[in-house]
C-alpha cells in the first residue's frame, strides 16, 4: 500500500466519519438533558432521508427540501420523546431503552412499506466530480458533508452558549433539580434536546444520502458506528466526537481496503469494546466520583 493510497483512504474515510460524529452528537444532546439516548436514531436518519427524497421527486427545489427535511426530523424527535422517553424518565426506569428500540422497529417497518425495500439514488445539485487537492481526490459532495456537520454543530454550540434558551439547556444538563428550582421546565428542555437531536439526525441523513443512496437499511451499519463514536469519545464532548469520528472513519476505510470489505465494521466495534474496558467514561469524558 503506497502512502498516497493510504492518504486517500484516510481522507475520504474521515469525511464519512464526520457523519458518525454528527449522529453521535445527536446522542450527546439528549444525554446531556435526560441521561437517555434514542436507540432508534438510525431509523430517524433513514426516515428523514426518505421523506426528503420524496419531496425532491415531487419536484421541489433542493434548498426548500433541506429545511423541510430538518423540520421533519425535529418532529420525529419530539415524537420519540413523547412516546418512548418521557414516561420512563418520570418513572426513573430504563424502559426508554426498550421503548426507543421498539419505536425504531416500528419506523423501520413503516419505511419498508411506504418507500419500498430498494436503495434509491439521492439527487443533489452538488457535484461529485473529484477535485485534486494536496495529492488526494475529494468530491464536493464529501466536502459538503464536512461543511454541513461543522456548521450545524457550531450553530448549536453558539446557541447553547449565547442565548437564554441555550443557557437553560445547559442549566438543566448541569443539574436538573437546581434548574427546575430556578423556574426552567426540565420537560420542555428535554423536548428541545430531542427536537435538536432529531434535526441533527435528519441532517446526517440528507448529507450522507448522495454518497450511500437511500433505503431502509442505509443507517443500520452507520448507527452502530455512531454508537461506538459516542461511547469511545464519551457522552459529553462535542470536540471528542469529531476527533473520534474522523479517526474511526479513516481506520475503517483502511481496514476495509486491506482486510476486505466485510471487515469494514470490525474496527469500530473492537474500538468500542476496548475503550469501554480501558476507560468506561470515554476518552474525552470526565471521571465520575461516586457519592453515597
Amino acid at each position, binding site marked *: 500500500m503506497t502512502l498516497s493510497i493510504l492518504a486517500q483512504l484516510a481522507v475520504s474515510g474521515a469525511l464519512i466519519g464526520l457523519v458518525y460524529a454528527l449522529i453521535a452528537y445527536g446522542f450527546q444532546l439528549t444525554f446531556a438533558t435526560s441521561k437517555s439516548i434514542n436507540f432508534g436514531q438510525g431509523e430517524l436518519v433513514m426516515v428523514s432521508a426518505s421523506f426528503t427524497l420524496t419531496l425532491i421527486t415531487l419536484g421541489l427545489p433542493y434548498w426548500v427540501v433541506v429545511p423541510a427535511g430538518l423540520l421533519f426530523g425535529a418532529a420525529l424527535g419530539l415524537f420519540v420523546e413523547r412516546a418512548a422517553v418521557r414516561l420512563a424518565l418520570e418513572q426513573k426506569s430504563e424502559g426508554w431503552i426498550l421503548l426507543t428500540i*421498539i419505536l425504531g*422497529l416500528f419506523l423501520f*417497518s413503516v419505511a419498508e412499506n411506504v418507500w419500498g425495500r430498494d436503495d434509491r439514488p439521492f439527487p443533489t445539485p452538488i457535484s461529485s466530480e473529484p477535485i485534486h487537492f494536496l495529492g488526494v481526490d475529494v468530491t464536493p459532495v464529501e466536502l459538503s458533508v464536512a461543511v454541513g456537520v461543522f456548521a450545524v454543530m457550531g450553530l448549536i454550540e453558539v446557541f447553547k452558549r449565547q442565548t437564554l434558551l441555550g443557557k437553560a439547556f445547559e442549566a438543566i444538563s448541569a443539574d436538573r433539580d437546581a434548574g427546575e428550582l430556578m423556574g426552567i421546565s426540565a420537560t420542555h428542555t428535554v423536548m428541545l434536546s430531542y427536537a435538536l437531536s432529531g434535526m441533527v439526525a435528519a441532517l446526517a441523513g440528507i448529507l450522507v444520502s448522495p454518497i450511500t443512496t437511500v433505503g431502509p437499511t442505509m443507517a443500520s451499519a452507520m448507527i452502530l458506528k455512531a454508537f461506538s463514536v459516542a461511547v469511545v469519545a464519551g457522552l459529553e464532548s462535542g470536540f471528542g466526537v469529531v476527533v473520534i469520528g474522523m479517526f474511526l472513519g479513516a481506520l475503517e476505510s483502511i481496514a476495509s481496503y486491506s482486510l476486505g470489505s466485510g471487515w469494514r465494521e470490525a474496527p469500530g466495534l473492537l474500538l468500542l469494546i476496548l475503550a469501554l474496558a480501558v476507560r468506561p467514561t470515554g476518552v474525552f469524558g470526565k471521571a465520575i466520583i461516586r457519592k*453515597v
Partner: protein
Amino acid sequence: MWKRLLLIRGAELLMFALLIGVPLAVQNPYVLGLLTLLAIYGILLIGLDVTVGYLGQVNLAQAAFLGLGAYTAGLCVTRLGWGMPLATLAAIGVGVLLGALLALPALRLEGPQFALATLSFTALTVTALNELEWLTGGAQGLSLSRPPLFGHLLSAREFYWLCMALLALVWIGMRNLLASQWGRAFEALRDSPIATDAMGVGTYRHKVAGFALGSALGALAGALYALNFQYLQPQTFVYELTVILLLGVVLGGRKSLWGAFVGASLVALLPNLLSNRTLFEAISGVGFLLSLFAGVRGLLRRAMRPFQALAPIVATFALVVGGLLVQNTEDWRKAIFALMLFSVVVGLPEGLMGFASKFLSRLFRIPDAPLPAASPLEQVLPAKKERSGAPLLELRDLKRSFGGVRAVDGLSMTVRAGEVHGLIGPNGSGKSTVVNVVSGLYTPTAGEMLLRGRPLPRGSLFDTARVGVARTFQNLQLFTGLTALENVMVALRGAFPKSRSMPLVLLGLGRREEKRAQADALALLEFVGLADQARTPARDLTYGAQRFLEIARAVARKPDLLILDEPAAGLSHPDMLRQIEVIKRVHQRGVTIVLIEHHMDVVSGLCDVVTVLDGGKSIAEGTPAEVKRNPKVIEAYLGEVEAGPAASPVPTAPATA
C-alpha cells in the same frame, strides 16, 4: 403450605406433561417443529432473563451467543466428528468463556453503555461468522447432519423430547439458583451495587457469573438449534433477532421462568400468528378491548397516568385498523410486533406473567411460604468478649483530596474496642469522606489505616467488608426491590458456605442453609423491631423503618467495627429515640461503633469518646461533655465567639445532603 406447593409445582408438572404428550396425540411434523423451537427458545430466554430480569441490564448479546453456540456445535460435528453430548458441551464451554470475557469489561458499565457494548458484540459476531469463510462457510452457510446419540439415530420426535428434558433441567436448576443467595445477590446489585459490595457480597463476581451463566444457556440453545435445523447462516443471528428475544422476555414478564417460557412461545409462534388473518384479527381485537378496559378503569380510579392509559389503547387500535387495511400482514411483521410490544411495555410493565401471577395468586389465595421461627440472638450476633480498650481502628495522618480540595487533611485518631466513638463536625468538615475512605469506597491519597494493627484494605468496599468492617449509608442504599428479610439475608455473614459454589446450588443442595438464614435474618429484624414487616419490600417501608433496616443489614455482617453514617438523619423524634435504643443494644453485644451524627443529644447519649473534625483535621477529642466546652469546637460551629457564657452547647446543625 401444601396448597402453595401443590398449585405452583402442579402447574409446572402439568405444563411439561402436556408438552411431552402432544406429539403422541398429534402426528404433525409442523407442530413438532414449532414445539421443538419453543423448547429451544425457552432455554434461550431463561438465560437472557438472568441479565435482563435479575441483573437489570439491557442485554443485546443473546442472539450472538445463540449463534456462537450453534456454530460451535455445528463445527464440532462437521469438522471434528464429535457426537451430540460433546458438541453440546463444547458449545456451553464457548458460551461461558466468551460470556465471561465480554462481561469483564462490559459489566463495569451501566444502562445505555452496557446495551451498546452488547450490541457491538452481536454485530462483531455476525461479521466474524460471515467473514471467516474458511471456518464457517461464510454467507453460504454451514450444513451438518445430526449425529446419533449413543449409537441411536434420534427421530424428530425423540429429539424434541431431548430438548424438553433439557428445558426441564434448566428450569429446575434455575429455580434453585434464583431462590438462593445467588438470586438475591443478583437483585441486590441491580438495586445498589455500592451496598452490595459494602455487604461483602462482591458485585463484580456475581455480575460476571450471572452473565456467563446466561450466555452458557444461550449457547446451549444454540447447540440444540444447530442439531435441530442442521443448517446455519450468519444472517439468522443478527440485531433483529436479539431485539425480538429481548422483547420476548419483557413481554412474557421479567424475573420469572414462566414469563420467559410465555415469551418464548410468543417468539416461536409469532410468524404463524401473522400468517393466519382471523387469528391475528381476534388477538388484536382482544388486545384492544383489554387495553380499553384497563385504561379507562385506570383513568377513572386515577391509578394510571393519562399517557400510560391512552398509549396502549392507541397502539392496539392501530393494530385493529391496520389489520383491516393492510393487504399482507407479513410485510408489516415488524410494525405489528412493535405495536404489540409498545402496548405491553407501557401498559403492563411487569409483563404478561407478572400480571397473571399476581392475579392468580389472589384468585386461588395462594399463601406466602411460611417463615421459620427466629434463631436465638446469641447465634446470630454472638456477644463479643474482647478485651475492651485495646486500639481497634487506627488512622494515621489520613489524607484524601479531590482535585485541589483537601477533604481529609491529615487525620489521626484511634477507635478503641468496645467503645462508641463519635465523629462530629460542621458541614463540609470531611466526616463523610472519612467514612468513605475507611469503608473502602475511596482510596486514601496518603496515610495509614490499621485494623487491630494490620493494614486495612484500601479502596475496596468488598475487601474492607470482608475483614469485618460494616457500614450504613447516610443516603439510604437499601436493596429496594427485595423484602426486609431478604435485605438482611443478603448480608448475613458465613450463612451460606455451600451456596458459594454455583453447581451445588443448581443441584438444589442449598435449601437447608436457606431455612437457617431466614431464621437468622428474622432474629435480626426482631432485634431492630421490624419482624412484623419481614415480607414488605424495602421500598414500601416507612422512612424510619428503612433506617432501622440499614442497621439490621449491617449488623448481619457480624462486624467488629460498625460505622453508622448519620443513622438519625431526618428521623422523627419518637423514631430517633427508638434508633438510639437500637444502637445501644448493638453496642451491648460488644460491637465497636463509629458514629457520625449531627444531633447532639444522640451523640451525648451514646458516645464514650468524640472526635471533632474541622477542615479535614481533628480539632478536639474527649468525652461529649469535654468537647462541648472546648472553645475551638464552639468556634468551629459558631464562628469566633467573644467573651460570653462559656458553656454554650453545640447547636444541632442540619444534616448534610
